[in-house]
């Protein structure tokens, strides 16, 4: 196996034993990027100079005989929604095409401090609005398993980079499924932590009550290791939670004896492909063989997740995106005849179709006379969705569902139908509504494309998610499959 094909925990051992240098590892990753990037197009910006400096620092430390951290020297891809000081950050939008942040997002600062190696900024749907990465203002990313299909989205660049071995680990962000759904489509592990577990400072905001940053990795062990770096309270994010952060590697134990699994039937209903439902049910059977018990349950409000999201997320977005006015940063239209014209033209020319679509919905839903009928109504239904989960978790330790109703679809297949596009997130959206943690892990293939399994846990119980995911992973071989590029 080539170095870039290994996991972070395997590479850590090689680095510590001086079997390889961090420089060799970083070169191996860039060699791979050069070989496949023309087909995959996972990155918007490559940061070779930064990476080589970071790698040299790790090699010097090793040469001095100093100990290194678990992810020190590990190459990472960073979704371009996260601010990186001195490194262009576009959010895949024309309106930020030349934005160079003067500060790091907290998670980026933590990864720098941990000695990780920055390979580049990963492609995404513009402002994280989309489910296929086709809404990038620059170019779509392709799924390494089949270049005619989408990698999912919005963290499609991060997912494709991990699956194609163009990095070792990656960071994504998830507002309605944007980590878990592309992880599912690309056959990797993706965790959306509990709302507030990871600081959002420096994450370019889409829907602030739903957004959360999380790891996208080749296996569950790497996921736990990256959580150890990024989780924790941050005074710069008043919504980050003060609870202490456990060592997530303590959850890497193959043990599900006595675990109570709830299987909400609504997530296996309309639109879920038979092959996907079958693979997920087989995975639940596997966990039962290993000592868990499973039972069908019902979360009747789950079906309202999508329409609720369709009001709440755009409402928050329309407010968050008001800051793009051509004054402080980014694109400004040439017509400066007066301020309002400059503003309207800047935003008309700078935003893509999907972003304007959501700003329009959100502005309407929040506008005078319509607030009660739309935003308030949706916020109340959000309570009902959350109560569904509260009831379920009185009886069960985790819930298991498909991550997405289908495997990766063809490029262009859903671009003209916003509702069909959003259906890819129907199983993941309710989890954001309730602020809960959810993880997607590979559990099979259909037509040569990966299928993902979603495990949903109680608030701040990432440990149980990781333990269940690890137990399943250790008993199966899905995560070892690689796309042929």
């Amino acid at each position: 196996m080539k170095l870039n094909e290994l996991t972070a925990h395997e590479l850590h051992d090689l680095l510590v034993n001086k079997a390889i240098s961090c420089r060799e590892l970083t070169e191996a990753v860039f060699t791979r990027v050069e070989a496949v990037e023309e087909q995959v197009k996972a990155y918007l910006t490559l940061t070779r100079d930064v990476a080589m400096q970071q790698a040299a620092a790790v090699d010097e430390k090793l040469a001095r005989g100093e100990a290194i951290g678990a992810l020190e020297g590990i190459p990472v891809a960073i979704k371009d929604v996260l601010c990186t000081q001195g490194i262009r950050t576009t959010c895949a939008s024309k309106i930020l095409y030349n934005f160079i942040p003067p500060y790091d997002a907290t998670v980026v600062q933590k990864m720098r401090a941990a000695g990780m190696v920055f390979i580049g900024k990963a492609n995404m749907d513009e402002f994280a609005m989309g489910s296929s990465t086709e809404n990038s203002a620059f170019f779509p990313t392709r799924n390494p398993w089949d270049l005619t299909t989408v990698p999912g989205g919005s963290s499609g660049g991060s997912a494709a980079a991990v699956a194609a071995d163009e990095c070792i680990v990656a960071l994504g962000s998830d507002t309605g499924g944007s980590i878990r759904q592309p992880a599912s489509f690309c056959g990797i592990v993706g965790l959306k932590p509990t709302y507030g577990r990871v600081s959002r400072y420096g994450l370019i905001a889409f829907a602030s009550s739903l957004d959360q940053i999380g790891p996208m990795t080749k296996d569950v062990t790497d996921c736990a290791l990256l959580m150890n770096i990024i989780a924790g309270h941050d005074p710069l994010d008043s919504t980050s939670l003060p609870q202490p952060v456990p060592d997530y590697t303590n959850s890497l134990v193959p043990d599900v004896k006595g675990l109570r699994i709830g299987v909400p039937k609504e997530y296996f209903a309309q639109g879920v492909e038979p092959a996907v439902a079958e693979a997920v049910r087989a995975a639940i059977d596997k966990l039962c063989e290993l000592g868990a018990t499973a039972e069908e349950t019902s979360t009747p409000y789950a079906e309202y997740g999508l329409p609720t999201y369709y009001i709440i997320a755009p409402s928050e977005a329309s407010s968050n995106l008001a800051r793009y006015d051509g004054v402080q940063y980014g694109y400004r239209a040439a017509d400066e005849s007066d301020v309002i014209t400059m503003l309207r033209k800047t935003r008309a020319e700078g935003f893509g179709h999907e972003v304007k679509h959501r700003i329009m919905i959100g502005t309407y839903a929040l506008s005078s006379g319509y607030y009660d009928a739309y935003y308030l109504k949706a916020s109340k239904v959000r309570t009902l969705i959350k109560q569904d989960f509260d009831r379920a978790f009185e009886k069960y330790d985790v819930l298991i569902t498909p991550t997405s109703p289908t495997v990766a679809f063809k490029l262009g297949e859903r671009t003209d139908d916003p509702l069909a596009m959003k259906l890819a997130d129907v199983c993941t959206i309710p989890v954001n509504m309730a602020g809960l943690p959810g993880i997607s892990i590979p559990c099979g293939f259909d037509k040569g494309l990966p299928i993902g399994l979603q495990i949903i846990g109680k608030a701040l119980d990432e440990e149980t998610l990781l333990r269940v995911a690890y137990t399943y992973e250790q008993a199966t071989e899905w995560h070892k499959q690689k796309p042929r590029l």
Partner: protein
Amino acid sequence: MRLSREQVEHVALLARLELSEEEKERYMHELNQILEHFEALQRLDTENVPPTSHAIPMTNVLREDVVRPSLPREAVLQNAPDAAEGCFRVPRVVEEG
């Protein structure tokens, strides 16, 4: 509820977006499609349900009001499309006279 073309124009003004004639048509169609989809929620009785704006219970966060360094002015202005004399420059907003 059907959204008219005039309403679409009004929302676009509120959102500070300039729309082409083509876009007005397209957004009118798309917004109506979404609102129709949203109608499904109207059959739920939410009379006595409190709204959720954040899923995880939160309290106000306070800190001591102490002076801390902020970003240097050059760093803040380096991304500005137009800047002069340490300020962001914008088209005239105040009338003369």
